[in-house]
């Protein structure tokens, strides 16, 4: 029975690809872990996690992840402060205030923003935003945390806006009708009824947006100043976890301490991203219910 056989093959392939997806994630984690653990054989874990100096080519080298972690933290917090209120407000405007024709235009523009490659935004940061901030704020260099925060905020906005907008649109009509029936204005309904009901979806969107900011590499590498020291403020040059891997991997000799240290940084990123994703996924599930 050839039909049976071909069917068996196809169905096995289908099941196999499900398995392959799991294997890929497992492999990803395993390879990161393997090379990271090689570091901790020769360099103490405590000094990696709590060391305040990242000096990979000094003698002896030091691989303290704190300055890089703080670099990522500063840039991310800066970006969150900008993109969360702006993103949610835009989502509210697009979902509930804008007339239908404008709505489509706005949504396509947000999609366009999502599709601009990060390296182009990094380039804009070098050519225009960095120098502009330097002149306006009187800094010694425009290549600093704030420039990164602003650009990364823009990279996170499409995620936050589109998921929040879906959440707001997904609130049952009856909620709105009930509020109107009680004499509430459109704004009161939006602020007091729709927004709280959509909060799970909005939080999920915000979490995914934050994940994008932490994981973004090229913008961070191009505009934040490439300075792996504990940053004094968000206006100082700094360096993120992602930019460190991207910037130093090319020079690190395969199998060296430095090479393993970069994988350990990768593992830190992987764990952070994993946690953020789990939280986002939990909120998304709650929103669907």
């Amino acid at each position, binding site marked *: 029975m050839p039909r049976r056989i071909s*069917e068996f093959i196809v*169905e096995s*392939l*289908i099941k196999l*690809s*499900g398995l*392959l*997806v*799991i294997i*890929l*994630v497992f*492999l*990803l984690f395993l*390879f*990161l872990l393997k*090379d990271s653990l090689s570091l901790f054989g020769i360099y103490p874990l405590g000094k990696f996690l709590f060391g305040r100096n990242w000096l990979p080519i000094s003698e002896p080298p030091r691989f303290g992840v704190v300055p890089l972690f703080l670099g990522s933290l500063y840039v991310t917090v800066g970006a969150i402060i900008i993109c969360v209120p*702006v993103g949610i*407000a*835009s989502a509210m*405007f697009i979902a509930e*205030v*804008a007339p239908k024709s404008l709505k489509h235009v*706005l949504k396509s*523009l*947000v999609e*366009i*923003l999502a*599709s*601009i*490659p*990060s*390296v*182009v935004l990094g*380039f*804009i940061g*070098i*050519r*225009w935003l960095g120098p502009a901030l330097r002149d306006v704020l009187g800094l010694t260099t425009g290549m600093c945390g704030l420039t990164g925060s602003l650009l990364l905020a*823009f990279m996170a906005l499409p995620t936050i806006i589109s998921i929040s907008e879906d959440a707001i649109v997904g609130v049952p009509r009856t909620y709105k009708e009930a509020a109107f029936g009680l004499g509430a*204005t459109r*704004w009161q309904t939006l602020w007091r009824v729709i927004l709280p009901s959509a909060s799970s979806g909005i939080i999920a969107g915000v979490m995914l947006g934050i*994940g994008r900011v932490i*994981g973004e*590499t*090229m913008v961070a590498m*191009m505009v934040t100043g490439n300075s792996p020291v504990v940053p004094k403020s968000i206006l100082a040059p700094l360096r993120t976890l*992602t930019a460190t*891997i*991207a910037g130093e*991997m*090319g020079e690190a000799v395969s199998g060296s301490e430095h090479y393993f240290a*970069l*994988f350990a940084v*990768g593992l830190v*990123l*992987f764990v952070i*991203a*994993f946690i953020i*994703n789990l939280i986002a*996924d939990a909120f998304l599930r709650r929103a669907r219910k």
Partner: protein
Amino acid sequence: MSTAKLRQQIAFIVLGAATLFVIVPILLTIFYVIKNGIGAISWEFITQPPRNGMRQGGIFPAIVGTILLVVGTMLFSLPLGVLAAIYLVEYARDNFFTRLVKLSVVNLSGIPSIVYGLFGFTLFVLFLRLGTSILAGSLTLAIMSLPVVVTATKEALESVPVSFREISLSLGATKWQTVRHCVLPYAVPGILTGTVLSLGRAAGETAPILFTVAAFYLPRLPRSVFDQVMALPYHLYVISTQVPNMPTEISFATGFVLIALVFLMNLASIILRAHYRKKRLW
């Protein structure tokens, strides 16, 4: 005007201002890149290799490299992603294995692109000895694109009415015959839209190809899948940060071509979606 009405007026103005704060920079960015780059765009720029330390000539090898990477990415991510989604929607029972597959897809979607770069480097370049090559780069980008393809396919399959399956099964068709003839054809538009979108993102990504395929300067075309290639996003990174005295026109023009390429792919995806939506039968 009552206070409530006044408040509403103010609130809506604030929301509108926030939206402008998002929209205006997008338009400015695109305008800025086009204005500064259009002057350097010429037939020569698109069809010639770079010369004189990349300060003159064109970006032809980078365009070809990016197109090859996109095709390679599709060859790997499309079959694997579609099959995995078919498994999840049509075959999976609610058990531990299924939950693990779903969790894996969610997890993959959030991993930073540079971590994919690291992974691709150890697994494909070193462990499987593919070297820094088109093959290694495409595989890395494919894994990165996988969650988008799976999610888009899943949604497309789920949107096909259950009755289609029930009728087919009731007529004596097997499970696979049902999926193949009564579900998959109707899910094709959704699958294509999602795939093209993910490929557009792959075309613009730099971090995953840094150590897996991208060449700093390689003015000839690749001979096999084991060769390195230049790629547009990496080329823009190189000429805007690593090459001193770079004519800014060329950087802007490179950015312009990259944006145009990604936009074209997005546009294709939007047109596909609109075209099939009209033909939808239910």
